[in-house]
């Protein structure tokens, strides 16, 4: 891997991720609107939202850590993008495996938590408390799914996992139960109903965003794009065989993002403890079942 290539990947991957993420967000908002019999936002609305927030006149900072938290949040996801395997650009993936990736995805949570904590607004802290609790809730089934997949493929290297799926069959077919559990887990990860209490977009006064204005909120929007992209790519690589080319890769991402949105609208919202109970009961149980099958298969 030449130095040029490395540089290209470093710049290109986050950019691509941001763009695809924007479209994913757009798609999710559109689909949701259609289900609710609305028209939905125009084509570039997510981008305009971010630009609008960035160019606001008043940008209120609550201190250095407030800024630092936002930077950490962006930086964490940008790092994660670099280590994701996508068609044609997976030079970094073999340097840090899926476990690294999971932990890289926890760094932004910590960054957000730090930034919100510095704002000294107890409502923000409550939001963080909920967010971290929810992380504990959805990470457990997710980890079981990851463990099952890694055990099945016998490796934690994502490029190898993709290569194995290409030579054999998709993970979805060989581990359907795990795939289902993983889908529920990423539904919770995306913060869609019924697991949206920690984002609580409807009541901004108690949630992580309470003190986030201007480009702080804009950065959170950027983060949302990156987050959706990361999660969908991860799921695609584990169960949908990754991408041969970008042309079959991107539809897979959209498909993965679409499924939660399709069903999310019909749900009300769970309380924090109910989120925990539900996620620790059903998807975790499913995932453990899938894991047991994987183990028994040999």
């Amino acid at each position, binding site marked *: 891997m030449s130095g040029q290539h490395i540089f290209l990947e*470093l710049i290109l991957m986050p950019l691509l991720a941001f763009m695809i993420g924007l479209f994913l967000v757009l798609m999710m908002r559109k689909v949701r609107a259609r289900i609710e019999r609305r028209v939905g936002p125009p084509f570039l609305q997510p981008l305009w939202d971010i630009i609008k*927030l*960035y*160019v*606001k006149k*008043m*940008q209120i*900072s609550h*201190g*250095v*850590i407030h*800024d630092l938290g*936002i*930077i*950490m949040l*962006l*930086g964490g996801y*940008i790092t994660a993008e670099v*280590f994701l395997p996508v068609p044609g650009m997976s030079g970094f993936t073999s*340097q840090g*495996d*899926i*476990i*690294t990736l999971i*932990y*890289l995805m*926890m*760094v932004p949570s*910590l960054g957000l*938590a730090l930034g919100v*904590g*510095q*704002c*000294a*607004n*107890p*409502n923000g802290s409550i939001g*963080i*408390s909920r967010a*971290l*609790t929810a992380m*504990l809730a959805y*990470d*457990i089934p997710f*980890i079981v799914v990851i*463990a*099952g997949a*890694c*055990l099945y493929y016998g*490796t*934690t*290297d994502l490029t190898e996992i993709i290569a194995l799926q290409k030579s054999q069959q998709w993970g979805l077919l060989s581990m359907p139960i795990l795939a289902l559990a993983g889908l529920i887990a990423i539904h919770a990860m995306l913060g869609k109903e019924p697991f949206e209490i920690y984002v609580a977009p409807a009541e901004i006064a108690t949630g992580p965003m*309470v*003190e986030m204005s*201007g*480009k702080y909120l804009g*950065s959170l929007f950027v983060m949302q794009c990156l987050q959706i992209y990361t999660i969908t790519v991860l799921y695609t690589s584990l169960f949908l065989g990754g991408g041969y080319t970008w042309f079959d890769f991107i539809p897979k991402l959209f498909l993965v993002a679409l499924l939660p949105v399709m069903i999310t609208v019909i749900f009300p919202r769970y309380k*924090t*403890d109910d989120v*925990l109970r539900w996620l620790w009961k059903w998807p975790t149980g499913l995932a453990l079942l899938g894991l047991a099958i994987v183990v028994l298969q040999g």
Partner: protein
Amino acid sequence: MSVLDLDHVFFLLIVNIGIAVLWGNRPFVGKILTLLYILEGLSILTSYHVLLSGAVLSSSLTFTVMQQTVQWQLGVSGGFFALITFMAAGLATWFSSGVWARSYAPIRLLHSYMALNVAAMLLLLASNDFLGLFIAWELVSLVSFLIIAINGGRSAKAAYSYILYAFLGAMAILLALIIIWNATNSFSYVEVRHHWSTMSVNRQLIVVLLLITGFGIKMAILPFHRWQAPAYAYVPAPVAAFLGAISSRMGLFALFIVLLQVVGIDVIQTLWLPFEIINMQTFLLWLAALTLIIPTFIALRQTDARLLLAWHGIGQGGFMLLGILSANALGTAGGIMHVFNHASYQAALFFAVFSVSYRTGTADLDRLGGLVTRMPISFTVMLVGIIGLAGLPPMNGFVSKWLIYKALLDEGMPLLFLAAVIGTLGTILSVYKLIHNTFLGQLRLEHENIKEVPWSMSIPMMILASIVFITGYFPGLLLESIAAMQSTLGISVVDYHLGGVNTGKGNLNMIVVVSTMLMAIGMGALIFFVLGNPRKQVTQWDNYAGGHFLTSDMRYQYSHNFYPGLMRVISPLYRNTIFWLESAIVSTVQFMAHISYALFMQANYLLYLILLVVISLLWVLAV
């Protein structure tokens, strides 16, 4: 053989003790002691390449008793632990050498006990047979008792419960030693390993369980974990850092030596608990996993920062054990590496917490908040420390945990992997609470004029924080000696390079990861600072607050019961079973004591004599 023999280090340690005991009260002595600790560390470091090649540093001290020659030799494992010990002791003494010492009256005791602890630990690390190990073990227990009890009051109580647990452990070890001696007629590691199979399987099982109990008590593995948190929390800052960093790892070192070098992990794998329900290795791994999870979630409930950290120390011990027992090159490497990593970030965290309580007079998480603007260095150190403790990249805690996760996955133990991740998640929740309640949120009015701690205290913290970062960036620095350790023990060796490990089935290159992270954070900063309008800084009390105007005298901080949603689900699981068991045992002992005493205090005591004669004559008739 060796460039430098161990005698020099022993001599320096004696000088250390002498200086501490004689002149411990003088203001400059802390600095001299720090230098001495550094010197001792360096003297091992200069001959470290010898150790890496598999040779040992030996001492000329020796004695022979019961046909057993007891001598002291420092191998690479001992050397590794010794370096951590000197690092912890040196930085702890540095921390206490300046302004801090003026506010602490029994500073001489502190210096002397610290020196004694280091000396006893070195004896333990350099022991070469079970007899030397046991002697050093008891010495370590006693001097730890001294240093834990240093503050009197609560800490003395904790020390008392510690010493009882320690004696329980020592007796278990003694029993194991006696059984081993009976079978092999030797105490030396080599001989015991050689004749190990002369013991019956039941005996082997008993011996392994006894050794685990004995050495495990020091590192507070599960049913014996209750003593540690109060013992490590209610002591002065340098002591807490020192104890939290290395003291309980002596148990791990002994277990490491015994299980891997003497017994051998292959033996552990072939031993089965009664009725063949569970393999010994699996049993121990699950014990380690429980030791990881339960104390971590107990830590989550603490409102005292020191207790919180101390409980996490126990949990991380479970992590190390999990790695070492995984019988995998990566796992062993991770377990040993975690010792170093834990020592570095735990010491940093204790320093940060104690710096806060030095300035504010409290470590109660409900009474702090918003100190980040007042104590930025302590905050940074704590931030680095908690990222390390939580095991997130780019700090060193991540590397060792990664190795352990990977080992568990490679060995096909997904549930243990899950347990390890649950432990990590609990840690993340808990440490965020720690940093939030201390440094973030609203600043209390009475803390408005607080300053950062003086340089003599902040420099050691910063050194530790940079160690946490550097060894996370270049884990190969540590992996080199760990690989040497593995090859001396004859177990499979980890395939390492400066940036991490290659396994062929998923690699880790921390240089790439951390460099990417740094670059990504640069990119994030670029996006954030360059794009958009400039920011306006507001005061710490200026926030939305639902449109209500806050003033500084209003308490507006979310700190107590930080995770109510989680607690609603898991609080029924906190049963205090071990506490209940402990008090049941105490009551039983008191009851027995009362009965025994009453036996002696009889007005008509001669009846016993007659009773005895009658019973024994009846017995004679029966015989």
